């Protein structure tokens, strides 16, 4: 009986840790899903731009001793600028119905941003300051990381703000209009390119926050994080349903918890196989993900 209780505590602790860490995946997933919902295209350079923003924030910390709030702010702004640049360079001039060329161009963007980071940092991992890094709540047999709770809360707030912008402002209205029917939107006087670039910038802000939070949660920034984060972000966006923001959030938390549980029971070698199998199951049995599309395309 004591063994069972012990296991129970361990497993629920594992799930909790996974859920909290999953909020970083959730934010990256929201970014992917936002762009897909708005343009029907996948931006492979998204996670790279998010981490690029985190590096900019770190530069602020190292060079001008910026306080942490400012570091997050710099990350958000830098990632928004990167997001806008990616839109301009990889999506703006490519014909709208050519998905493949845009995909390939954004892959080029991913390579480029990664190499710039490697060049500037010589590939060295760099320590990233954390907010509430020393806070550790001990509730009974459980231990909960204060900084992950903070990440979770910031994630919720950011998504709330995003949803507000999307559904309660003119800008959000324009974004949704372009996403649903860009010809009609143009006829109404909405600039498709300017709206899309703003969408990329907003997704960039989210990405910068996600990048900075992930870096703060791990404590270290390194270019090796880019590809795994890209893959995870896409998996989360797909499981949540491409285009659905609430879907991406729930899927992010779910994937975070799921992979932690599998790590606990089956070890590292099989952990990723299970995540991948999970994805496969979703794709085969529920191709529209958890919530289908919230911003639909004609």
């Amino acid at each position, binding site marked *: 009986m004591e063994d069972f209780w012990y296991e129970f505590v361990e497993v629920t602790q594992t799930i909790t840790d996974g859920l909290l860490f999953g909020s970083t995946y959730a934010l990256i997933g929201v970014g992917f899903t936002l762009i897909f919902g708005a343009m029907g295209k996948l931006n492979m350079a998204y996670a790279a731009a998010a981490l690029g923003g985190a590096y900019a924030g770190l530069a602020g910390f190292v060079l001008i001793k910026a306080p942490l709030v400012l570091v997050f702010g710099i990350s958000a702004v830098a990632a928004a600028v990167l997001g806008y640049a990616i839109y301009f360079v990889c999506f703006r001039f490519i014909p709208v119905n050519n998905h493949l060329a845009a995909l390939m161009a954004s892959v080029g963007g991913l390579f480029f941003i990664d190499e710039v980071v490697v060049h500037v940092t*010589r590939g*060295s*991992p760099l320590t990233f300051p954390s907010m509430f890094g*020393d806070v550790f709540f001990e509730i009974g047999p459980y231990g909960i990381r204060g900084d992950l709770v903070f990440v979770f809360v910031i994630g919720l707030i950011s998504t709330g703000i995003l949803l507000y912008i999307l559904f309660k402002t003119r800008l959000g209205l324009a974004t949704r209009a372009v996403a649903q029917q860009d010809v009609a939107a143009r006829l109404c006087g909405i600039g498709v390119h300017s709206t899309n670039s703003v969408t990329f910038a907003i997704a960039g802000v989210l990405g910068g926050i996600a990048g900075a939070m992930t870096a703060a949660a791990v404590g270290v920034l390194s270019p090796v994080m880019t590809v795994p984060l890209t893959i995870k972000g896409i998996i989360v966006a797909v499981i949540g349903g491409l285009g659905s923001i609430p879907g991406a959030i729930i899927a992010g938390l779910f994937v975070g918890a799921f992979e932690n549980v599998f790590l606990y029971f089956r070890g590292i070698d099989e952990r990723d196989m299970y995540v991948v199998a999970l994805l496969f199951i979703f794709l085969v049995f529920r191709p529209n993900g958890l919530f289908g599309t919230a911003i639909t395309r004609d």
Partner: protein
Amino acid sequence: MKRLFKGVSVGLLGCALMFSALTSSADRSVKVLGWGAQSGPLKSFGVNSETALRSAVAEINAAGGVKLGDGTMVPIEVIGYEDSACKKDQNIAILRKTASTTDAIVAMGTTCSGACQAMFGVLQKKVGDASDSGLQMPMLADTCIRPGLAKISEWAFRNVPNEIDMYDALFAWLSQQHPGIKTFSGGTETDQGHSFITHTKVIVQAAIRHGFEWVGPAVPELGPKVGQGAKELQAATKTQHWLMGDTNYSVQARKIKKQNPDMVLVSSHPFSACGFLKEMKRQRVKPKLLVGLTSSASQETLNGCMKEAEGIIIPTGFAPITPAAQKANEIVSKAGGFLDLHSAAAWENAYLVKAAVEAAGISANPDNLAEDRAKFRNALAGITAAEGLIGPVTRNAEGEASKPYVYVQVVDGKWKVIHDPRG
């Protein structure tokens, strides 16, 4: 605009073809070509090795250069340092390029163990075996540290520390210094060949051999002999595994906390080592001793987690503790690189090349290239002892080195030599 772009790309293509057709200069010199990771996350290794190599060669040339078979003194020329990006195909391409389009008598580098393994595989296995169409090009590696690579080919040589000896001696010393330390546990990154192999086959074994008790999950076959199956040891260390790009170490750290070991091994490269160390700190895991992987005895670890790495002990093949080492350290730092156990080997290799060239009596004449390379290889194989930066280096019949080492520890945010077993 489109035409301009087209013109630029055609021009670029033309330049590329022209450059790749250029051959090396006509002045007599002993030519070497190096390569390493100059892009990608391991970029610092390539940068440091290149800086060390070029600096050492500059020193040799300033002192007069090397003596050829006919008695003339000529400089060593590093005709290039290429970027291999740690990719096997690129490493092999550069090796073949060096062998077939340049006059280099030896290839030097490269960074990644997996890439070395592939490259050594395309070399001729045994010298003089006419049925083996492998490349006949001497290769002197400074970083590929995974155990047992040089025996893949007689043309392959390495100047890397022998991790088996180093960890064995380290744990012998630790067991003397810290008699109160009994139990140990630890983790490694499983998708990085060097870390995983060294952790499971070398470090854990050495600790057990010197009386420390493994408190990870029990495995009946766990024993003191090196060479035991990796899968068995993997089973033993199952829950303390992570991947080199992982961002969440909570499960692993918590398991170690529950085991409450006196000593923790963190056998991985700086990024995941730092991620794991930070997680251990968050979970209030405070082992009495921390031991790390050789490749992490570097500036990168300090960049990534100076505070959390405080106290970690690593055996390393380089520290500025002799006049030669200090001088080299100064020169390389001024040139923009760092000397650590890997790049210091690159420096030493330059001097090893000088010794081999002078023992071989080569002509440095492009017409005798194959002969020169064969003579160089034989001479290099014959050098069983050389002077390294912190002491004498010996070499065995398989082309593997046995190097002196010291133990370093992070103290107050800097690497400090805490024990010098060189005697």
